[in-house]
């Protein structure tokens, strides 16, 4: 089978304008993946399926991954002018200091597709797509028109992670009930307070139990 770099080159040759990035996997199995851009995703997927040499006709696995907003603290060298007395004269002198700056890297949701070829018996080729952020720009193109096997799996990703797949024929909640709000597999999901007391609660469990008890005595919840 072709290496990821060769697949990348083949995609870029076949789909003009497609932006493909190789994401290296440091684990010993070396299952590297390709990050494809959302606007060209359907065309890229169609190429991967119909190309005679790749023939990735079997979409095995679709899943979502949630990456939270990351606060990155980095040390930057800054040059600024400081007043200094040089030879008895007050003047401004350049000085380089190190400064820690914090910036927030926006998180994103990722959809990962594992492709295999049944006719050529090779694989996996892993493609991924990323949303712009985790709150409002969570749309990705659906690959169900290319591989039918994505139908239920994309619904599941929508249900649990909240990625909206445009072009999906039947995008509804699949595992949770329809009235459910929120997406429970996101990493910042807060569970409902249906806490079961344990007779000998301790640590975290005791804290949650006491918080719940306070709520009960304040009359916020019944029991």
């Amino acid at each position, binding site marked *: 089978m072709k290496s990821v770099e060769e697949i990348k080159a083949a995609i870029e040759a076949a789909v003009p304008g497609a932006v493909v990035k190789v994401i290296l996997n440091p684990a010993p199995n070396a299952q590297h993946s390709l990050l494809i851009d959302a606007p060209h995703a359907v065309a890229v997927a169609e190429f991967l399926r119909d190309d005679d040499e790749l*023939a990735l006709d079997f979409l*095995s696995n679709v*899943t979502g991954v949630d990456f939270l907003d990351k606060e990155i603290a980095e040390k930057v060298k800054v040059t600024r002018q400081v007043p200094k007395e040089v030879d008895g004269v007050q003047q401004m002198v350049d000085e380089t200091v190190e400064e820690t700056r914090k910036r927030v890297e926006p998180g994103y949701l990722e959809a990962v597709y*594992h492709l295999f070829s*049944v006719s050529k018996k090779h694989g996996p080729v892993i493609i991924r797509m990323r949303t712009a952020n985790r709150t409002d720009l969570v749309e990705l193109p659906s690959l169900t028109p290319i591989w*039918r*096997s994505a139908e*239920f799996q994309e619904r599941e990703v929508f249900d649990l992670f909240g990625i909206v797949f445009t072009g999906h024929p039947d995008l509804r909640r*699949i595992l949770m009930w329809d009235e459910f709000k929120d997406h429970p597999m996101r990493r910042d999901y807060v569970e409902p307070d249906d806490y079961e007391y344990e007779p000998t609660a301790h640590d975290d469990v005791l804290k949650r139990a006491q918080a719940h008890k306070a709520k009960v005595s304040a009359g916020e919840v019944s029991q």
Partner: protein
Amino acid sequence: MSPSGIKTEKLAGWNRPPVIESDGEGELLEVAMGPHHPSTHGVFRMDVVLDGERVIKLKPVFGYLHRNHEQLGERQSYLASMPYTDRLDYFCSLTNNWAYALAVEKLVGQEVPERAEYLRVILAELTRIQNHASTIGFLLQEMGASGTPLMYAFREREKILDLFESLTGSRMMCNYMRFGGCRVDASPAWLEATRKVVAGLPAFVDEFERFLMTNEILMARCQGIGVLKPDLAVNAGISGPMLRATGVNYDIRKVDHYGIYDRFKFRVPLGDHGDIYDRYMVRMLEMRESILILNQALKDLPAGPVMDPKAKIRNFRPKAGESYGRIEAPKGELGFYLISDGGPNPYRYRVRPPSFINLTVLEDMCLGSNVADVVLIFGSVDIVLGEVDR
């Protein structure tokens, strides 16, 4: 080129199930089959629209056994997820263990000792036999053979469960495999008992076949019903006996050569029509091939450790990376997708459930057939709800 040899340029028309028009006479009847229905293998629900007896729409409804397996897997250590994998497909806990162990071993580059590999093959093939026997028993139960074939299947299943119990300590939830081997070694007495059970299995399969293969009711109700075309099967990600019943030669034991499957001589049974009868026959023949593998594995089983002494059990923290490991479970391709961020818990823990994905084409297979056949078509998919909903 599609696997069946038919050149299908674009599969666009296959993307949705065909629309079936009602004949315009009488009213349409909407039936919710499940989540409590004796034929749904647990808590599965199908919303069926009927025109008389004919199914013109069928929508599966999932989630009645959604136990948050994936979230629990991300909250606990790698090893702690092992007993939870038992409860995915609770008929085949040992193959689930293997798939998960394989994914983690791929993540860290862990080797597995010879003897452990052989034990894994022995246990996986025993699991396959008891799963297929039970599936056929349940299929016949849904055909109206209330109880009897299932009793034959469970009689054999109990013998295999006894072996599991004496080796692992539990009948169903075995929790036997570890990253880099198996938990305990098999004693000579256990191997002797296994040989005895395996020696009795061909007689059981013969008996089962003699009763069922040419049974008129079985043939009338299964042949030509619930036909699945190979192109759609591949496109919809169908795997396992259901894919092979359509004639597609794709067995992960042969394709990936995971474990030590390339050392054994066995054939991959293939169907021709993709109907219920083919699915039943593929399972029947797979049991025979599994017996062949078992005999070879029991003959060649080497001595040695069952656990890699260098394998890390406590404080297991894989380096950052990801891995996708898959095996040919009795129900199809069972895969585990893990992302590690270097911590003690997986960052992402995903199960690729064969039962769930095999249901993608349930509507396509059922449309136009009678409502009584829906039960059979559904039974021939062979699902376990613990895996469908996780």
